[in-house]
């Protein structure tokens, strides 16, 4: 029997992988992908909780739909900015993005 906890564990694992990716990767694109992983963890969690605990109103599922949409838009926007940056500086390595610090 697969319970809510199993879903949550998967979700937590996914989220952690995403977190790791954000911290460990130096390419802006890969960081964005890691963030997508984290958002998908959220989605798993929401869907599971909605169907286990809130089957009548399934608010979680609705949220998931919105999250997917918003995440797509977010990635689009972010890629546009990355593109612009690449044009100006010929790199997307976040290590090199320290024109402003301190």
């Amino acid at each position, binding site marked *: 029997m697969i319970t809510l906890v199993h879903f949550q564990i998967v979700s937590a694992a996914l*989220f952690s992988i995403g977190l790791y990716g*954000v911290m460990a990767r130096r390419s802006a694109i890969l960081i964005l992908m890691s963030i997508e992983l984290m958002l998908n963890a959220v989605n798993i969690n929401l869907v599971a*909780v909605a169907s286990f605990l809130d089957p009548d109103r399934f608010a979680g599922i609705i949220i998931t739909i919105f999250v997917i949409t918003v995440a797509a838009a977010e990635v689009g926007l972010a890629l546009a900015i990355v593109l612009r940056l690449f044009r100006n500086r010929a790199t997307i390595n976040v290590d090199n993005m320290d024109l402003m610090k301190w």
Partner: protein
Amino acid sequence: MTENLHLLMPELFLAILAVVVLVADLFLPDDRKIYLPWLAVLGLIGLIVLSLNLLWNTDLMLYGGLISLDNFSLFFKCVFLVLGIIVILASMDFVSRWLRSPGEYYSIVLFSILGMILMVEAQELLTAYIAIELMAFGFYVLVAFGRNNRKSNEAGLKYILVGAFSSAIFLYGLSLVYAYTAVTHFDAIEASLSSVLANTDQIGPSLWVGMALMLAGLGFKVAAVPFHMWAPDTYEGAPIPVTAFLSVGSKIASLAFMLRLFSEAFLPAIDQWQIIVAVISALTMTVGNVVAMVQSNYKRLLAYSSIGHVGFMLMGIAALSSIAIDGLLLYMIGYAVTTMAVFTALTAFFNMTGREDISDLGGLADTHSYFAAAIAVALFSLAGLPFFAGFTMKFYLFAAVGTEGFLWLAGLAIFNSFISLYYYLKMIREMYVKPTPDSVRLVMSQSGVSNGISKPTKLITCLSVVLTLSIIYLGVYPLHLLKAIQAATLSIW
């Protein structure tokens, strides 16, 4: 469900206005694009009138409790609409001089304002999330608007990366909390939380981690320590009017939303989060003010200073009483007016020189005495000296926080505002004592027309005068504003 749709007319019209501005940009020839901001401003003025007429003293929950139209939201709606007007007016010279595609700029500003308004009105997590993202997307674009400006690009990328990361965190926290409460409406969360908290031994860490993650997400929005590190970079890189908009609009909206969330949804857990928020606010104000001492770029300095101010405002949430909320709202308004004043004047300066260093402000009192005075007034106000809004708002907020048993926090805040005086004075010293740097003089005389010194436009001067006068007005006689604030507070507390 649709019978109350007319009550949402301001929001709908705002969205339409944004689209109209965007579309009009396509059709207007380049020399007529100057009409775009005026169109937006006229629209916003109309919306203010409309909102006040339509929503005065309503207290309704619309659409199954998604959106609440009460005095609190009305108050902030007006605040954001006015903020929009100010930002657009302050941006006009800047945009025509430094940026391309004005239509998109103004329309995105309007969309962001729509997001802010919805954030304050939201009574449910999903709505709030959408609103937050609406606002944030606007800002992502605006920050990166300096298309070929490397700083602007970098700031945009950092902002969107950290922003997306923080919204992921926020959502994951949301999902964890949702796992305990199974509801998303604030009042339902409150009820559910209080029953969950009734027997504490059954609560696992995931509820707390969830709440902490949500707090982190919100902390990112308001730039609270330790979620603040993006702010200086982003503020520094963003075009000046955007920096102003970001440091006022984004923060006020997020704080207002936070206030709603914590005073309604998370109220049962107040014993837990109160102290944490207090500590965060203490950290925030200290780090912000201390680090601001050694900055040399005025945008970055103001970024740290705004982090410090967020620390002060978080105290209002930590104290969470009717008087503290009054104080918080008063502080928000005072902060908004003052920050806009200082950024407006700095925008005027930037338009003339294109310089961002504090040392470039040297001799401003000689070359442009009015703007030097306006900046000085605004900085003194931020430092909390009397006669200006800053003093009144700080006094009110600190006294309010003190009465709720946070005298230590109020004391720390007072000490921090003393530290802040140092770096504000540094800027003032630069303007009033130091001579104009030669490079700045050169730039000014190249761009200028008469007697070797360029002049800011009348528009931005007038705007600055109005803002400066408002600072003084709020500092000398805040009674009317406070009455409005008390009316607004009454509907949430």
